[in-house]
């Protein structure tokens, strides 16, 4: 696999785990001059064996390792695991807890999309300015998280039955103020990233993924919606409070790298709308149904729970038996589905070697998610 000369004209380049733009993976490229013939993804550099670890933890303890799957939007991943437990044990969640969960999921989604923007700007024209803008704007969200939960990135705030604590005094006003600030900064990103001449030259028409190919290869998240297909778990199978909230599913018809950037950009706008609705209209009531930490199901069950994370759809298929630990947890990760799409992109359209960082950051991979 690592032999550099394959055929007389083709050379295999190894773009490895130590590189400013590659992330924690190794990508092998078969190139002929500048044109890329074949992409091979060598994953597994961050494999921790989370599926095996979850079999040795109780239900409450399992929330901690599974949230470390994607550090940028831990709320969505934690919610998928907690929803699976609640379905398996038949626990009802009060309405106020569902609204708080939706608020945190949307804040995590904005956090993750800003991170994706920063990386995309760095790979396209080396814009450290945009990357540093995103770190500054994320501090607003991280400060809100810290006030509510005590931690900045991995808060382990959801538990089967509800959430740990209620919103503190004055929190809703702070959310509204944060949303106004982010809306003003939001317009700067459009001018810097989408209307920018450098971006248009580099990203328009690159790595086109047609709708039928997107479905056949199993794309998910903004990669799928950037090819014009309106699939979003928040609308197809509503969970938490999304059935009561008013938002749109964003799609773009152009199917290229610029379309995926625009999808992420407009999704931030929809998330800000949801945050405002929650801050203004959240109902009162209880925040959790009392559940013992040593809960165990009475008979074996099998449940499936799906949640829309920032990168796509995560599915948790949980098998339980009459024991305090789950029997098997199968995690269907979004990045692993999108990495297969990335491998096939060299066959679908012509990509040059210099475009590979731009294309891979438009897929927005997080390798800890695909390696679990």
């Amino acid at each position, binding site marked *: 696999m690592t032999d550099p000369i394959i055929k007389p004209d083709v050379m295999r380049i190894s773009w490895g*785990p130590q*590189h400013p733009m590659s992330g*924690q993976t190794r990508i092998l490229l078969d190139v002929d001059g500048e044109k890329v013939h074949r992409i091979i993804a060598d994953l597994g550099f961050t494999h921790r064996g989370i599926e095996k670890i979850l079999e040795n933890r109780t239900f409450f303890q399992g929330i901690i390792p599974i949230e470390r799957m994607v550090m940028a939007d831990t709320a969505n991943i934690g919610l998928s695991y907690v929803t699976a437990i609640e379905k398996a044990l038949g626990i009802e969640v009060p309405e106020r807890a569902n609204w708080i969960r939706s608020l945190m999921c949307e804040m995590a989604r904005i956090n993750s999309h800003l991170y994706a923007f920063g990386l995309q700007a760095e790979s396209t024209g080396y814009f450290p300015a945009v990357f540093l803008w995103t770190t500054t704007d994320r501090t607003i969200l991280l400060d809100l998280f810290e006030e509510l939960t005590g931690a*900045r*990135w991995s808060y382990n705030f959801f538990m089967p039955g509800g959430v740990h604590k209620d919103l503190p005094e004055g929190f809703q006003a702070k959310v509204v103020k944060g949303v106004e600030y982010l809306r003003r900064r939001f317009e700067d990103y459009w001018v810097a990233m989408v209307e920018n001449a450098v971006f248009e030259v580099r990203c328009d028409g690159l790595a086109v993924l047609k709708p039928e190919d997107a479905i056949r290869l199993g794309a998910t998240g903004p990669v799928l919606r950037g090819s014009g297909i309106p699939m979003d778990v928040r609308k197809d199978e509503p969970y938490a409070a999304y059935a009561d909230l008013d938002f749109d599913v964003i799609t773009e018809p152009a199917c290229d790298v610029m379309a995926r950037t625009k999808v992420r950009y407009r999704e931030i706008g929809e998330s800000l709308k949801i945050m405002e609705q929650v801050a203004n209209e959240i109902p009162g009531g209880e925040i959790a149904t009392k559940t013992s930490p040593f809960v165990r199901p009475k008979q074996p069950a099998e449940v499936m729970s799906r949640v829309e994370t920032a990168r796509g759809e995560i599915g948790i298929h949980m098998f339980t038996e009459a024991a305090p630990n789950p029997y098997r947890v199968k995690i269907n990760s979004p990045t692993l589905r999108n990495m297969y799409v990335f491998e096939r992109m060299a066959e679908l359209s012509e990509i040059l070697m210099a475009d590979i960082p731009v294309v891979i950051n438009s897929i927005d991979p997080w390798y800890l998610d695909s390696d679990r």
Partner: protein
Amino acid sequence: MLEEPKEPKRNFESLPGAKALYSVVDYVAGWSRKYSIWPIHLVTGCCGPEFMQTSGSEYDMERLGVLPFASVRQCDCIMVVGVVSRKMAIRVKYLYEQMGEPKYVVAVGACPTGKGPFYDSYAAVAIDEYVPVDVYIPGCPPRPEGIISGMMLLQEKIRNEKRIGVKE
């Protein structure tokens, strides 16, 4: 019992005034080296976003002289940020062998120290079985103030080193 570190023997130390001159030279060398630690750009696990926030605008790590750089031959520090699996640990060892002396390793987070929340995982390893570590920064993920305070500990260690004119 921990021993006191011995003073290294130096060239020309029997000449008059050599001790005073060496202490001035050590001070200047230590001051200039501690303010230019260049770590290699290698994020191995989930503490990555917190490391990027630390290099960002609010907790700017570059004012301490810490500039992440791309090529390992021009760096002098590896910051192992996050969970290390065996596949990645082999690469960390290759990078450590390629760096020039003097070189340092900082383990950021609970996972490279002792596997963190994945303590019974078959695939995660603790990095001090592969490379010698100078500073351990605990936390999951550590706060930016924690990462900066860990780098300042490394700066203290560098400032107290005596390397110029040491007899082999």
